[in-house]
């Protein structure tokens, strides 16, 4: 029982998160009249199109108005504009909850599909290419350098990394991206400033791949540059805290070689929090980075979300994306919590 009670509580919290987000979504869309505005715009557009089509057959303007008025009524019922938003929007959310993400109005996938699911599946790998790559680099350097720094506590290098980490927290990632564009691609002309492929994109698979890598380089450097300091610093601190515990002293007192102490007695204990941090990053990389993808014009999830809001607002995509973001976050959180219980035996005994 002691194992599952906290887990159950966490799972319930996450489901709570999920519903609060959906509730906020529905309330914002409904209370501000935004949803109604989008629908009226859609209907207006359709009516305009029909008017030009009907102008061929119906000459009498009064007759025309009558027909159009009737058509408007039909459309309003069809789109649900006649039902108040607090009936209509929950229904949309319920549909999305059954993983039927619906169709986008203007956004299309690269091969022309308007199903939100298709669009999303196309974008997720793009986001992962940037964020997962940078995460792997950050984590590798972070673990190696962080555990090393823990042995050098108080040295100038250690102080430098601490300072660097503090500064990293004060720097907007997207601004570093802009700076790198300014220096590396505008002034020095070494790397492309944005986009995923050159125009025209190379057709052979190998040149195409290298082209993609070349374009991904700047955003990956940006993301890595800003997260590397905090990564090294936090792993250093975790390791340092464990290195001060009694069992490590005992291991040393037993005369075990230092490398063995570090690997078996420090890193083994430090693993669970580090792994959780990594998993979190991994979860985050699925949803992309709205700001960095905007700066580098990268067709990822973040950029998709921005496009759904900024261009011609697309209610279906907005609801679907917010749903997916939250769903991914919540599912991964629950999996992590479960995993953590098995990774770190201490969790089981403390409530």
């Amino acid at each position, binding site marked *: 029982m002691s194992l599952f009670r906290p887990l159950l509580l966490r799972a319930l*919290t*996450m489901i*709570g*998160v999920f519903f*609060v*987000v959906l509730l*906020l*979504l529905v309330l*914002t*869309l409904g209370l*501000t009249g*935004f949803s109604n505005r989008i629908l009226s715009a859609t209907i207006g557009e359709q009516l305009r199109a029909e008017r030009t089509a009907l102008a061929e057959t119906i000459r009498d303007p009064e007759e025309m108005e009558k027909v159009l008025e009737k058509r408007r009524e039909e459309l309003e019922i069809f789109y649900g504009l006649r039902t108040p938003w607090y009936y209509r929007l929950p229904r949309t959310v319920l549909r999305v909850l059954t993983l039927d993400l619906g169709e986008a109005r203007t956004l299309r996938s690269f091969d022309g599909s308007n199903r939100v699911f298709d669009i999303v599946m196309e974008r997720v790998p793009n986001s992962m290419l940037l964020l997962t790559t940078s995460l792997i680099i950050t984590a590798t350097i972070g673990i190696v350098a962080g555990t090393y720094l823990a042995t050098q506590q108080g040295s100038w290098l250690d102080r430098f990394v601490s300072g660097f980490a*503090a*500064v990293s*927290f*004060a*720097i*907007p990632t*997207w*601004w570093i991206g*802009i*700076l790198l*564009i*300014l220096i590396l691609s*505008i*002034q020095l002309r070494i790397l492309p*400033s944005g986009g995923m492929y050159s125009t025209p994109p190379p057709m052979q698979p190998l040149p195409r791949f290298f082209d993609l890598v070349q374009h991904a380089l700047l955003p990956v450097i940006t993301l890595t540059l800003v997260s590397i300091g905090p990564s090294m610093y936090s792993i250093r601190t975790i390791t340092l805290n464990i290195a001060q515990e009694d069992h490590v002293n005992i291991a040393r007192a037993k005369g075990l070689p230092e490398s063995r102490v570090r690997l078996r007695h420090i890193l083994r204990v430090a693993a669970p929090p580090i792994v959780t941090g990594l998993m979190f990053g991994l979860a985050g990389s699925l*949803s992309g980075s*709205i*700001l960095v993808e*905007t*700066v580098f014009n990268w067709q990822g999830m973040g950029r998709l*979300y*921005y496009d759904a*809001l*900024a261009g011609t*607002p697309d209610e279906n995509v*907005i609801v679907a*994306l*917010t749903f997916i*973001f*939250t769903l991914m*976050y*919540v599912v991964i*959180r629950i999996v992590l919590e479960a995993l953590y219980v098995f990774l770190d035996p201490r969790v089981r005994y403390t409530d």
Partner: protein
Amino acid sequence: MRRGDALRELLRSGPGIAGTTLAVALFVVALYVLLTFPLDFGESQWSNPVVWVDNPKAVPPVWTNALRRQPQPPHRVFEATEPDMIQMARSGPVHTWRFPLTYAASRPPTFLAVTLADVNYAERPPLVLISLKRPDGKQVRIFRHAVRGPREGENGPFQRYAKTPLRVQLSANEATVTAVQKFVADEFDLRLKSAQIGGRVDRILFGLPDANFADDIAPLPGDYEIIVQAALRAEDDTLGKVRFVVGGAVFGWMGTDSLGRDLAQGLLFGLPVALLIGIFAALMSTAIGTTLGIASGYLGGRADIVIQRMSDIVANIPVLPLLIFMLFIIGPSLWMIIVILVAFSWPGLTIQIRSMVLHMRANQLIEAIQSLGASRRRVMFRHILPQIMPYVLAQLIFAAPSAILAEAGLSFLGLGDPSIPTWGQILETGFRTGGIYVGYWWWIVPPGLFIVLTALTFMLLALGIEPVVNPRLRRGQ
């Protein structure tokens, strides 16, 4: 610990000194901005193109000339109300203004513009003439304007250009092009079509054209003089204000953006705004977080459960997408940004404060106070709060930079409050209008640097205050 000791402790650490110095400097500048700038600066100045019309567009700051082999022409504005000289001619008094201009740059001015305002005349309209006297002794008339005469049914005295001054961009003015055409023909014996002159007016006026005109016109450095003459028809007629602008290729401390806006002003105004966002959002979220944390820890029971579940949920909401979503729908306003930031940022503190209060509740002092019959509110706010206050203060400072960075990010996505210029918005304009791709670094780098500097100031303060708050970290232990 007494207050004086705390300050001394703060000033003993490197980050503490740096943070305090920076903070004082930032607040002094912010105060100066608040006292000297109009509070509606955003609407009345920044977003008002009329204010910036006489500035050169997208030029770097003046100090970049120090780094250049060939200095760029500076921006010069001549403005006068009283004439330098009044002569009597047969037609009436002639008012003359003389603007001396020493020109040393290798490039011609980016534009020439003249503005006339407040013309009053009794019967017949005055005539305004502007000539440029060059170092080689040649003089060329670049502007001739007859003020509009009386309209039908209009009675004198007549007023012209009172509300909307007359502004003429000479470089693009047809009459000026014709005048330059004649000047080149008379003085240099060059017959040119007006199409050959268009766009090179400034270059010809400030240079020496030679026979093979296709080559670059050699610049002519030296002492120029702009002579403005108003031929008035009666004693009491006036030309109230003359303004002549020689457009430079560098401007001010920070340069200009593509609308000619003085970036130094926008960046300065951004400082109090950023501080306001940071401090206000931090204050609000810390206040909510602390209150709920104390209540949750001290009251326990159902209140505790409700508050803990609530903060658990809010802490786990993916904020940025929701923030963007809500701002986009509700509409961008600075207060809305702050409110939403606050609404999602309190839970972390609540959870921490709760665990601190839980420890404290078992404290004998608190038990003693309770047994003396103190009310729960009194215990919470008179006895528990002061003890956790230093910690709360550190968290307060720590919360400010994240609010500043969040606002900058939102502004960069175009969700900033359009009536109040912020650093994020300046960056956004620079990025969206493509300023970055043509290398307008003075438009892109400083706003970001200021964001970093402000956020860093709070970070340093928080780092410096940590040993004060957390005695275990104090030096010598």
